[in-house]
């Protein structure tokens, strides 16, 4: 089996079935045993015009990130695809409609735009589809057929995927689509017989264990269901809306409820209310909505009420770039509240962590009695990865509630300043444990009190508790052989994949480089981070934000200034850029 790493792009107009084709391609390749990472980009405007692109990377090794170049372009609309040719590798393959329904001036055609060396696979997609199924609808599948034949993906893989997808629409639809696919497959086998590379065939291993394609948002939705979420309160906002829509479908049949609120303030308010009464609840939002939650989050901190808040980051500030990815809400998540209002902030870095961190966040919120903020981003929310269906074990799903024991009945102190800072929490309905929660400073009983000692002690208690959470929160993970390193690269969130891939490449080149993934942004494992930094000559922190927000947070742990690689392009940082930066640092060192 040889190593495969191929990036395929499907590009067309909205309406061409671009996104659907990309989805089926991903499914088929997953079933073929490859690691898959895919990401769609939709047009920014609502109205049905504009370019749709799906990019997928398939590999025999674990795929960690998307790269900026494309090996195979499947064009469903040449006008839309022309601007994509600059991203093609020198010997890229391009599939396109050689007889498009609308005549394209030769000079403006895709064929004219590509560089010499590009392999062109022109196919009369529309004609083939119409001939096979009586309608041009399936021409996206015809194109996939051509791709499959040339690259050696067995047609059965696609048949299976097509069946599964169109089954609900009836046998006829399935049949038409299979035929459209086969028309392309057969055409390519025949016409391109001398150019069949069959590159995938050799590495193909029909996976035993069925992997599923899941996006970050789907993983979060499923995690919430598995964690036995009862109530979801939210307000639509890109890119968090799909979580609400997923739960709106799946939660009610399980006896839970999804309530679309009037805004984000009421959403977090209702989450706090439910959790005060002991019931798992969550909300998901993005920057502008997260900003509106600021005040009530600090209330959760002060009154020690759990809450799970997902902030799906997008380009900012303000309304910003609603359909672009960015990691610029870290400052706000960690430092955003007036008053000393530390809360727990974690950031998953891949789809599996989206699932696992979400499941656990309920427990953390309950145990540490504080809002937990889960930071994802547009890229992580929408990219798909293939994994065995994630499952949480009993322990991860169990609740983290700590209740007072009956001996405390009548003399109960809701906010007892224990050593850990965690105080057993009573719930309305429990007899003998009545208290009032408040955002005012208060005595251990909950009674408002503004004396200096009370505020000192209770502030200390609340912060002690947050620091105590470090034992449960995901520790930084190092990828290196240990020991002294010339460059240590620290990543968080969706950028971690690119960091790990860049470091893998650097190490393969024999460079002394290691990576550290930070998942818990607050509190953070300063000792682990400091130890790692202490072994590194240089620290590089690549982030999808302008201000270097993680660098601002942990930079003080390093004895020199950390190096920053800040991008606000709205797109993921490709591993190559991080690698280039690593090399530049090492280069400068040798001068």
């Amino acid at each position, binding site marked *: 089996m040889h190593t495969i790493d191929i990036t395929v792009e499907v590009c067309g107009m909205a309406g061409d079935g671009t996104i659907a084709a990309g989805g089926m391609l991903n499914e088929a390749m997953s079933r073929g045993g490859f690691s898959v990472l895919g990401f769609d980009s939709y047009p920014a405007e609502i109205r049905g015009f504009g370019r749709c692109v799906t990019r997928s990377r398939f590999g025999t090794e674990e795929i960690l990130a998307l790269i900026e170049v494309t090996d195979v372009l499947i064009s469903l609309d040449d006008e839309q695809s022309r601007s994509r040719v600059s991203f093609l590798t020198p010997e890229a393959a391009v599939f396109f409609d050689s007889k498009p329904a609308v005549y394209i001036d030769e000079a403006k055609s895709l064929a004219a735009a590509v560089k010499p060396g590009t392999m062109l696979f022109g196919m009369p997609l529309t004609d083939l589809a119409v001939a096979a199924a009586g309608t041009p609808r399936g021409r996206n599948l015809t194109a996939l057929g051509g791709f499959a034949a040339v690259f050696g993906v067995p047609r059965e893989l696609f048949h299976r995927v097509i069946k599964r997808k169109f089954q609900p629409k009836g046998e006829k639809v399935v049949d038409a689509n299979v035929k459209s696919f086969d028309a392309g497959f057969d055409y390519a086998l025949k016409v391109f017989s001398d150019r069949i590379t069959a590159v995938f065939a050799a590495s193909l291993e029909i996976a035993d264990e069925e992997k599923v394609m899941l996006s970050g948002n789907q993983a979060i939705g499923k995690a919430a269901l598995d964690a036995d979420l*009862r*109530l979801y*309160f939210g307000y639509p906002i890109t890119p968090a809306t799909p979580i609400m829509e997923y739960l709106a479908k799946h939660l009610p049949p399980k006896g839970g*409820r999804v*309530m679309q*609120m*009037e*805004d984000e*303030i*009421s*959403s977090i*308010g*209702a*989450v*706090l*209310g*439910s*959790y*005060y*009464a*002991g*019931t798992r*609840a969550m909300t998901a939002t993005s920057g502008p909505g997260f900003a509106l939650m600021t*005040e*009530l989050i600090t*209330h959760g901190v002060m*009154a020690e009420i759990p809450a799970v808040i997902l902030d799906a980051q997008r380009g900012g500030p303000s309304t910003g770039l609603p359909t672009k990815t960015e990691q610029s809400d870290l400052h706000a998540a960690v430092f955003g509240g007036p008053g000393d209002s530390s809360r727990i902030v974690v950031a998953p870095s891949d789809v599996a962590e989206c699932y696992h961190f979400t499941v656990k966040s309920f427990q953390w919120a309950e145990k540490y009695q504080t809002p937990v903020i889960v930071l994802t981003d547009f890229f992580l929310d929408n990219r798909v990865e293939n994994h065995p269906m994630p499952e949480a074990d009993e322990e991860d799903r169990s609740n983290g509630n700590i209740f007072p024991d009956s001996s405390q009945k009548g003399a109960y102190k809701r906010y007892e300043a224990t050593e850990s800072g965690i105080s057993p929490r009573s*719930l*309305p*309905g*429990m*007899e*003998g*444990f*009545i*208290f*009032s*929660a*408040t*955002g*005012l400073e208060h005595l251990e009983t909950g*009674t*408002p009190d503004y004396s200096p000692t009370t505020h000192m002690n209770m502030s200390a208690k609340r912060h002690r508790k947050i620091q105590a959470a470090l034992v449960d929160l995901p520790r930084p993970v190092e990828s290196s052989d240990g020991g002294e390193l010339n460059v240590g690269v620290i990543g968080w969130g969706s950028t971690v994949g690119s960091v790990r891939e860049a470091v893998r490449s650097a190490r393969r080149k024999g460079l002394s480089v290691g990576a550290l993934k930070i998942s818990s942004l607050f509190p953070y494992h300063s000792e682990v981070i400091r130890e790692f930094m202490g072994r590194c000559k240089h620290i590089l922190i690549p982030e999808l934000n302008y201000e270097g927000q993680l660098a601002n947070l942990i930079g003080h742990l390093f004895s020199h200034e950390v190096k920053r690689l800040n991008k606000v392009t709205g797109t993921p940082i490709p591993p190559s850029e991080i690698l280039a930066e690593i090399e530049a640092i090492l280069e400068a060192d040798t001068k």
Partner: protein
Amino acid sequence: MKTPGRSLAEKVKGIKESGAFNIRSEHLPTWCPGCGYFGIHQGLNECIQELAVPHHQVVIVSGIGCAGRYPFFCDTYGLHTVHGRALPVATGVKLANPELTVFAVGGDGDGLAIGGGHLPHVARRDINISYLLFDNSIYGLTKGQPSPSTPMGTRSKASPFGTTDRPLNATLLALTYEASFVARLFAGDPRGIASALVEGTMHEGFSIFHIYSTCVTFDKTFKTWNNLKNWVHPLPEGYDPTDRRQAFDEVLSDDYSIGVIYKRP
């Protein structure tokens, strides 16, 4: 002459000492002596006794303000949230545990200014909670600024040349918002409050109690005990609270009739 507030405050003290009003907490409210809120306190107490709800099944959710302090004065579960957010938080409490009897309370600033955007939605969702709006037409806790129900022309430190905004009518708002139970009440009539509360709390769905009260400390001219006592009067003979159109007519023509204004059949 004793104001109704002062007599109430004294009465409350007496009853407190007798131990009869169970949900009263050990500590007497920190409200000013004579504040109208004592009457509301008495009404809610009577209601809870009549309903015979165990205290640990009661949650009082409040915003910020003198009214917002209310949970601290009750021997029930309490949740003193932030300014204006009692209703969404109470929504969460009730949905989380429908067994609980949930009261939301707050002032006119809390409920009609900063929190005014939530009332329409909790009403149209018909969340099964009871909302007591303590309407003294003033910001009590912050020492006397005008509120959304302050009449035009009112002078205060914050409006030395007189206010110029038209006041909102919370009862009319509630009707417009499709609230399914609407009562208009008077802090000087705790019995009336108690009986409306009993009815509204048993009603399945959202119930709002718009309670005229007085701020004896900062309002010397408008909603004084004397004025309120002269102004309020019962709903007309034969009034049918199940008729929404009639309810609108009543509220548009009379600001001071008190009782159950509307109840969705």
